[in-house]
């Protein structure tokens, strides 16, 4: 076992087993077996105190912020309020520090025999036992704070259990103890073949150029715009209308130009924000693989490493965003069972950006079980008479939106501006076009043991799911569809701690029903 000089302070309790002296299960009745490695009850790296203190400080500050700010602004900035704020901050700092220390002292972990044990809790003690067989993956995440202290966060993900209960997270471990713990846990799961040295094979790495393209076409502009909108509201609080108007006037002489300039500036800003977000999340994205696992590394500020057991992958999705599809680019996602930390969601990005024609080769390298279906498949399509339904379904929300806008205009007694008619027509035309595209792109096929379902919301998504991993299949229809002899097809696969659903709308009823029954368990 390697000894890490930095990690000494965490083992100063005399009654603790000293892990530096070797894998002796101090005070723990370890099972006598050569394959099993025990890790005596250990504490986290002292940096955990600071991380925990920061977390609770953030929580408490968040809770106090709204009443605090309200109190401040109602009374104006007087010396007494300032004093109160400083007092509050002092209490917060001291309290969070004390809490951090107590929770560090209360947290111990150990691996002994067939299970991983985690004890924690300052007031309410909890003791979690995770049998090593149930461990799905051990992930390390390095956030900004972790990187400052040169430690890692280790997450133990298990199958089953609720979303919050599913994992045990150790916020700070020295690298040596993280590696030791990882070895001890994975030793109980698999042969220790997935070590860094023997090396998972790298499948693909995201190039900087690709990263920028991914950001530019991410379609996250909407999200970024809403961030900008919230930001501008805060901005409005601080700058009076008169000031902003003077600013506009000095920037651009006519109001139309001013509006245009501001709109374009906001758009560009949001776009840059979207690119920055993608760069932070996906920088250095590397996918590698060995016999049993996929390893994903990514992130700039927060480095993430995820391990996905290949056998657990339930479905692969090729997502062609509306901006990416014309460029022939796809993003790949996997649905994986029993793996879904509270924040990682149910599906994981397998690779953020890939030329579409490279996808079959990539799949053959990364997830061979899924590769045959994509190339062999020529999709069968919904019948032409279902086009009407696709278009109607796309038009309905736009029509409702327009009707609402119209009634609110009439109710307020305003007259409609001249540009609203072409705008409304454009909205309807685009919606109809979307419906047509959805119909054109929908389809299904079955090849190489996988069912392939393609559909479009805005992005075009092709889902590949092995027949033997389907959890259920349904056909669904309403009375109008039944009269027209059409039905939806839906299949469910396991994903995270719940499931994910894929489907195709408005197939021939008999096709849907045959597919549902035919996709049943493989008869031997």
């Amino acid at each position: 076992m390697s000894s890490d000089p930095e990690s000494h302070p965490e083992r100063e309790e005399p009654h603790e087993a000293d892990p530096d002296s070797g894998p002796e299960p101090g005070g723990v009745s370890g099972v006598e077996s050569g394959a099993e490695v025990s890790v005596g009850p250990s504490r986290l790296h002292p940096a955990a105190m600071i991380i925990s203190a920061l977390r609770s400080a953030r929580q408490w500050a968040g809770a106090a912020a709204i009443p605090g700010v309200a109190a401040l602004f109602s009374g104006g900035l007087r010396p007494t309020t300032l004093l109160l704020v400083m007092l509050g901050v002092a209490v917060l700092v001291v309290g969070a520090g004390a809490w951090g220390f107590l929770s560090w002292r209360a947290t111990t972990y150990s691996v002994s025999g067939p299970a991983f044990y985690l004890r924690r809790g300052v007031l309410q003690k909890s003791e979690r036992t995770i049998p090593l067989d149930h461990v799905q993956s051990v992930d390390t995440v390095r956030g900004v704070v972790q990187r400052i202290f040169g430690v890692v966060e280790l997450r133990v993900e298990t199958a089953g259990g609720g979303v919050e209960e599913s994992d045990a997270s150790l916020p700070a471990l020295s690298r040596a103890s993280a590696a030791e713990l990882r070895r001890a846990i994975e030793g109980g799961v698999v042969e220790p073949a997935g070590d860094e040295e023997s090396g998972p094979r790298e499948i693909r790495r995201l190039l900087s150029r690709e990263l920028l393209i991914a950001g530019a076409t991410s379609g996250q502009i909407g999200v970024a715009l809403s961030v900008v909108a919230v930001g501008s509201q805060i901005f409005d609080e601080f700058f009076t209308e008169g000031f902003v108007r003077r600013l506009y006037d000095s920037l651009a002489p006519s109001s139309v130009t001013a509006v245009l300039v501001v709109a374009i500036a906001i758009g560009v800003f949001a776009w840059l924000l979207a690119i920055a977000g993608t760069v932070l999340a996906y920088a250095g994205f590397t996918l590698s693989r060995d016999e049993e696992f996929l390893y994903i590394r990514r992130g700039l500020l927060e480095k993430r490493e995820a391990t996905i057991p290949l056998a657990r992958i339930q479905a692969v999705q090729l997502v062609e965003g509306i901006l990416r599809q014309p460029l022939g680019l796809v993003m790949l996602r996997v649905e994986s069972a029993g793996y879904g930390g509270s924040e990682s969601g149910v599906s994981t990005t397998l690779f953020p950006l890939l030329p579409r024609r490279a996808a079959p080769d990539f799949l053959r390298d990364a997830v061979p079980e899924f590769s045959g279906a994509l190339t062999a498949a020529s999709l069968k399509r919904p019948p032409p008479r279902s086009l009407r339904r696709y278009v109607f379904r796309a038009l309905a929300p736009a029509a409702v939106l327009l009707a609402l806008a119209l009634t609110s205009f009439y109710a307020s007694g305003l007259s409609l501006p001249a540009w609203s008619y072409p705008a409304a027509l454009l909205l309807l035309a685009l919606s109809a076009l979307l419906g047509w595209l959805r119909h054109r792109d929908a389809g299904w096929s079955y090849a190489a043991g996988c069912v392939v379902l393609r559909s479009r919301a805005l992005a075009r998504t092709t889902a590949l799911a092995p027949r033997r991993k389907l959890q259920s299949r349904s056909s669904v229809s309403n009375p109008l569809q039944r009269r027209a002899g059409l039905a939806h097809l839906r299949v469910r696969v396991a994903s995270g701690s719940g499931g994910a659903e894929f489907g195709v709308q408005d197939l021939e009823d008999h096709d849907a029903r045959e597919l549902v029954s035919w996709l049943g368990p493989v008869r031997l």
Partner: protein
Amino acid sequence: MKDAPSERLDHRARLLWRITGAVQTLLIVLLSGGVIGGLFFGAGAPLYLWTIPAALTALAVLTLVVAIPTLRWRRWRYEIRSDEVDLQRGIVWVSRTLVPLARIQHVDTRTGPLERGLGLATVVFYTAAGPNQIPELSAPVAGEVRDRIAELAREQDEL
């Protein structure tokens, strides 16, 4: 795919649904009556406004107590075959779902106080993609169905 699964729910399911429908109706009556009474009659509104809660009550009785339990019961079918569970349900949106027995992880029977009073129970079976259920079977039938699903699921596992 066969035309429809063979088994129906217990007859008392309709009674149970009518009772729960009646409770919902009562809530609607109390709510709408309360709103009309409190809001409008305080301000001296005309008496004919009482037709609104009355109409709502009639509508609720018709749908929640009469129509929905009948239609729902008529639609609900299930069948446990040697390799799959076949479910058909839904009043407007009719769905037909097939769940492979090999995918079923565990099976429960569940019964609430009202169900217990009527001698009914619900069978819930879990796959990795979430639970499915066969509601309102008579308690002994539910027990049999549960045991049968568990038995078949285990056999599939051993294959």
